């Protein structure tokens, strides 16, 4: 490998040819400040439009300052990262960025977690000269069911554009207009709701400012808890417990299941339940559907749709409703765990309590922003009453815990309530890419073969690679499994299926890189994939520690079928636990 030697701040360093000054400096432990730049190592994605110019450095012999994020190192280069000229330039750049930025930090939803604010502090900005000459842009706020766009706060770093287009291939966002009016927006500056947005929330996860934030449901949750006529149930998604601790300065990968349950009880929820229970239920329905399609296929039924696609992820559901409208009958008809939980809570559990569904409020805590949209879909309502009333993100839960004066770190571990709080290890691993299909394999194998699994861990289905595949031997019957996480990878895999290039029996898709642990509602990881990996390890740790690790062995699931549903895919199960999909494709060829 060809290398170059250079000097940065009087220190020698040797790096491979093509390395940027920014990265060479990092190797020396010199952190050049960056704002628009973003690197997502595991995705192989780099956002470096070299637009903000915060990262400029002085290069000896070069007339102007160089943006270190986009300038390659050259042999013998002498670089200085903190000369007076550089510091003055950085401050001027920052002052210019701030000159037309709204000054409402006190009430901004991103305050305290804002990269722009952090940079202003780092660079010691104390006043903003010239702001009287700046034209403030005057865009109206765009409220979608999941995401709020307040683009007056957009600094044109274009990180969201990279996520939306390169990683997710959704194509909802692009840089538009010029000068003070330049922002990132959907086509024709229409609202997000009219764009192909899937509400995956990856744009929100990388936005350095308050331009993209989630719709906040905490106020509605507080009101519901305070209402004496309501019984309020909460369900927590598997990925939340593996990341919530980060909001309380705990190490990434710390499992806080017990503390989370204790905190939810202190907040005042009447029942603290687990979405993992519904994940086990999902496996019963989806796994049975897989076996049903397989059996029909093996018996020569030509109309059967294979591969079956998982349908737990609402971002993914939105994506295929926009982009794969010819394949709407291919995904499993099973609802997502969030919605299965809501449907069972407001029927089976309401019956047990002797209450009407209107007296129950179901709140979900999700690592996800698309869940906010999902719970508002019309098909998940009965006479206008939604199965899940409100969905809050991991970040919103952390905020609630703080607002309720709860000392999270000191909380004792508590257990979920029963019956809808009991879950298996199979339900837990839904939180990581590959987890749903591994959980499905654990149950489908035993149901199909009638034999106990020789092993429970299917490590060949785990990992961070964008597209993975494995063949699992179902007692002589080879089952081909595909896995994709990140919608760009899902698109590739699906196109291969559509063209007949790929041959799978079952495919798991998660919209967010890493699966739900990397969801758009999780604590911000600022592109650090080590954090996502730590969360993933935590998920598999929780699974390994569970006494029961196969969904069909969950005693409360068994009981639910005995008492209420009959058997998987029964008429009642179909009515409560399955759904159908709609084309969201816009007719673009207007007559």
């Amino acid at each position: 490998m060809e290398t170059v030697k250079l000097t940065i701040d009087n220190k020698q360093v040797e790096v491979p040819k093509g390395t940027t000054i920014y990265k060479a400096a990092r190797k020396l432990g010199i952190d050049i400040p960056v704002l628009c730049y973003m690197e997502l190592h595991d995705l192989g994605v780099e956002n470096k439009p070299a637009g903000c110019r915060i990262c400029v450095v002085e290069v000896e012999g070069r007339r102007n300052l160089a943006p270190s994020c986009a300038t390659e190192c050259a042999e013998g280069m002498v670089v200085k990262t903190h000369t007076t000229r550089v510091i003055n330039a950085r401050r001027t750049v920052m002052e210019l960025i701030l000159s037309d930025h709204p000054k409402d930090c006190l009430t901004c939803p991103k305050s305290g977690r804002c990269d722009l604010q952090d940079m202003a502090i780092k660079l010691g900005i104390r006043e903003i000269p010239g702001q009287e000459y700046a034209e403030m842009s005057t865009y109206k706020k765009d409220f979608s069911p999941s995401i709020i766009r307040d683009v007056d706060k957009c600094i044109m770093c274009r990180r969201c554009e990279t996520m939306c287009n390169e990683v997710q291939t959704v194509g909802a966002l692009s840089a538009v207009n010029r000068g003070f009016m330049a922002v990132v927006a959907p086509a024709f500056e229409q609202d997000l709701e009219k764009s192909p947005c899937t509400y995956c929330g990856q744009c929100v996860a990388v936005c350095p400012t308050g331009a993209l934030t989630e719709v906040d449901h905490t106020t509605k949750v507080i009101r519901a808890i305070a209402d004496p006529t309501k019984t309020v149930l909460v369900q927590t998604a598997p990925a939340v417990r593996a990341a919530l601790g980060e909001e309380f300065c705990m190490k990434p990968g710390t499992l806080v299941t017990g503390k989370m349950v204790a905190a939810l009880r202190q907040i005042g929820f009447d029942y603290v339940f687990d979405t993992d229970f519904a994940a086990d239920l999902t496996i019963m329905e989806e796994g049975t559907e897989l076996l049903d399609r397989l059996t029909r296929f093996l018996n020569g039924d030509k109309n059967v749709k294979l591969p079956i696609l998982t349908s737990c992820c609402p971002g993914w559901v939105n994506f295929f409703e926009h982009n794969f409208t010819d394949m709407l009958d291919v995904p499993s008809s099973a609802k997502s765990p969030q919605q299965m939980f809501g449907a069972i809570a407001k029927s089976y559990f309401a019956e047990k309590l002797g209450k009407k569904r209107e007296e129950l409020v179901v709140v979900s805590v999700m690592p996800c922003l698309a869940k906010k949209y999902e719970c508002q879909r019309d098909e998940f309502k009965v006479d206008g009453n939604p199965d899940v009333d409100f969905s809050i993100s991991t970040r919103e839960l952390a905020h609630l815990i703080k607002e309720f004066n709860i000392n999270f770190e000191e909380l004792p571990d508590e257990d979920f309530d029963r019956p809808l709080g009991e879950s298996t290890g199979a339900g837990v691993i839904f939180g990581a890419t590959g987890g749903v299909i591994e959980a499905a394999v654990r149950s489908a194998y035993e149901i199909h073969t009638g034999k106990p699994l020789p092993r429970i861990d299917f490590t060949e289905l785990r990992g961070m690679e964008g597209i993975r595949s494995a063949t699992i031997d179902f007692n002589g019957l080879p089952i081909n499994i595909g896995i994709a996480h990140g919608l760009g990878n899902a698109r590739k895999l699906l196109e291969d299926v559509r063209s007949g290039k790929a041959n799978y029996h079952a495919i798991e898709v998660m919209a967010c890189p890493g699966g739900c642990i990397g969801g758009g509602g999780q604590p911000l990881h600022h592109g650090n994939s080590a954090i996502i990996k730590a969360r993933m390890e935590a998920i598999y740790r929780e699974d390994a520690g569970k006494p029961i690790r196969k969904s069909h062995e969950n005693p409360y699931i068994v009981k639910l079928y005995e008492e209420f549903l009959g058997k998987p895919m029964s008429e009642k199960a179909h009515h409560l636990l399955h759904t159908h999909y709609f084309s969201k494709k816009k007719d673009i060829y207007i007559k």
Partner: protein
Amino acid sequence: MSHIKLELKPEQVAKIKEICKSFNNDPGELINVLHKTQETFGYLPAEVQEVVAAELNISVAKVYGVVTFYSFFTMIPKGKHPISICTGTACYVRGAEKVLDEFKRILNVKVGETTPDGKFSLNCLRCVGACGLAPVVLIGEKVYGRVSPDGVKDIIKEYEEQ
């Protein structure tokens, strides 16, 4: 962004497809495709951009981003009588801005806009090489020299009946 709702006819869609095809439907040729399309249609309404996006297999947002970035591209159809006011140095110092203000007041449009009846569109340009006649106004191909704010009303009148 408001735009005039438009229904593309099949032959118009075919024309856009033909333009895209002449550039091998290559997304890298987006700017050239838009140039050619604007040459054909006079402007780039949303519906046209949607067809271009589909043909080049890129997002509509991306096409719209490019259209709004380059000042050459416009989403507003030109009026029957395009008005161009020279705001080059010579015209400017001789009072072009006051003339422009008068056009804006009478037609009730901003620079870059077209009157709702589609008759007039208002634009600025820099120097037509007739500095001796400053300030200069162009209506279509016709040049008006030494225009004063008071004379604007009469110029517009000439075209109103046409």
